[in-house]
């Protein structure tokens, strides 16, 4: 190889809250970290939330400072819009192939001014708003994205050139190509996160088919301080909803979906969203249909008690299906468990399906020497009771939802533990006894 391969102490894959925290916990100990994120911004799912339970801190308020610390840390190199394409072990170190996806923008020259975005004539449903809002074909991914660099979605570009003409720094490069690079590292932390179960995983719940049946992330964007609509409206016609229902376990605790486990966060985010909804729509009726309320974290029980006290209805019921009437009002067919369980139908303005968590799709794991997934699909942690961050491969550690559903605080804690495992591994490596 003519090119010298960049070398790091630790490669952290995934820049959600777990990856950010693990990187900081390593870098603050003087370790050199390469943080790789496949999305165009760091921040993961947390930066996309409205507020967090149980503190009701605004999610972007408390995530952006942490993102900024990572971005400015002298010991952390960050690559966004980059994917891990391969990882192998050689002479006791890990070698990774990274694919830098083309942004079609020169990152060194872009000043984040959005002139290109203003000029672009193509509107595309905005993935950051989960389809509720719109973006341009070239855009800064979202207001507090880090880095503040534009990126062009070539699939929606007509090559009209208006963006290039508007750019004050001539930074748009329509000819940019994906580029692979090799890096090496002594240890690896996988913070590859999670996906949600598909909206149509339970077709009888109407997800992805009925316009007023939303995913939890769409509901977050309804509630976020500068979300798609800037307020809570229902997507079918922009009406301010008066009756909103949550269907719990709509993607968890269900063997038929291959998700027999509990997704851990849905009870709490439903209670949180319900509280926020009742704050912005004081007269609205809000109901949570649930099997068990799992408010097990610190301060969570009291949080749910507050939600009940605010008048949120918690109804223990089995939801059979969700249909809609002629005005697109979702109709929930259910059996209450606290009453004589006769089937009944309740009409709401808006229904949120509390989807479950699935392992974050990461194709690399398939050819990833020695790192196994458990039968639930998440990374196996064979030494779980005492060393939960260890995977089946020495030197590769896991943090956050890579090893199963987890809330933010548990992800942060585990990230610290993964960082310490990596530090210990590096020292043993240095002493020649990995």
């Amino acid at each position: 190889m003519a090119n010298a391969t960049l070398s790091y102490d630790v490669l952290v894959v995934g820049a959600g809250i777990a990856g950010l925290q693990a990187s900081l916990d390593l870098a603050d100990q003087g370790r050199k970290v390469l943080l790789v994120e496949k999305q165009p911004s760091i921040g993961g799912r947390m930066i996309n939330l409205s507020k967090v339970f149980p503190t009701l801190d605004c999610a972007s308020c408390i995530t952006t400072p942490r993102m900024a610390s990572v971005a400015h840390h002298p010991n952390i190199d960050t690559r966004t819009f980059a994917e891990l394409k391969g990882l192998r072990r050689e002479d006791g170190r890990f070698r990774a192939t990274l694919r830098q996806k083309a942004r079609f923008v020169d990152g060194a020259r872009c000043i984040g001014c959005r002139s290109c975005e203003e000029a672009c004539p193509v509107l595309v449903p905005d993935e950051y708003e989960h389809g509720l809002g719109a973006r341009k074909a070239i855009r800064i991914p979202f207001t507090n994205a880090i880095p503040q660099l534009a990126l062009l979605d070539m699939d929606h570009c007509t090559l009209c050139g208006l963006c290039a003409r508007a750019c004050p720094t001539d930074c748009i490069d329509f000819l940019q190509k994906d580029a692979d690079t090799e890096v090496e590292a002594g240890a690896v932390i996988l913070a590859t996160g999670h996906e949600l179960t598909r909206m149509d995983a339970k077709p009888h719940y109407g997800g992805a088919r009925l316009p007023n049946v939303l995913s939890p992330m769409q509901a977050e964007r309804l509630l976020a301080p500068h979300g798609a609509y800037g307020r809570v409206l229902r997507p079918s016609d922009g009406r301010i909803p008066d009756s909103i229902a949550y269907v719990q376990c709509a993607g968890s605790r269900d063997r038929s979906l291959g998700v027999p486990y509990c997704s851990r966060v849905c009870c709490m985010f439903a209670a949180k969203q319900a509280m926020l909804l009742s704050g912005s729509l004081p007269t609205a009726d809000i109901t949570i249909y649930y099997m068990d309320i799992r408010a097990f974290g610190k301060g969570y029980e009291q949080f749910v008690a507050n939600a009940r006290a605010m008048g949120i209805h918690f109804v223990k019921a089995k939801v059979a299906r969700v249909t809609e009437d002629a005005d697109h009002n979702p109709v929930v067919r259910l059996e209450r468990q606290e009453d004589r369980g006769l089937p009944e139908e309740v009409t709401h303005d808006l229904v949120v399906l509390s989807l479950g968590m699935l392992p974050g799709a990461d194709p690399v794991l398939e050819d990833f020497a020695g790192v196994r997934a458990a039968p639930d699909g998440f990374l196996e942690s064979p030494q779980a009771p005492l060393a939960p961050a260890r995977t089946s491969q020495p030197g590769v550690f896991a943090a956050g939802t890579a090893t199963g559903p987890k809330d933010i605080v548990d992800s942060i804690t585990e990230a610290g533990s993964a960082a310490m495992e990596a530090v210990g591994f590096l020292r043993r490596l240095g002493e020649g006894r990995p």
Partner: protein
Amino acid sequence: MGQAAVVDPELLKAGQGNGKKILILTTLASSYPGANAVGQARLSYSPDTYIFRVPDPVMFPDDFYLQCFDKGFGGILVMSSGSDCPYEGAYQRLSARIARVYLKMKEKGISTRRLKLTTICTVCRAAFLKEIAEMRKAVAGE
């Protein structure tokens, strides 16, 4: 990109326009980035507003506010970090201090509407604009 702005030098030397100046005290952790978010969203507010950033406005003594009124500021908005303030007890101390400043303002016959303590987070764009609009009204009413 538009034309580079050229402003008549007389307009610059003419001092302020019609409005009295509003001083806005913001925190490094919350309200200063909050003010930036307003700009990032290309929203707009009155230009007679001057933003200072400090670790926490709890550092300003009572006199600081009174002197600013003496110097000619029409209003002062104190945008604190509130409950997510990184400093223990700072918000309580600050609000106690502002309460004392109110008493002194009353003694001096300065309308207490010209000073307001509020909390602004890093993405409170609407609240930021609302506070400025309200303070503008308060200042104009003088």
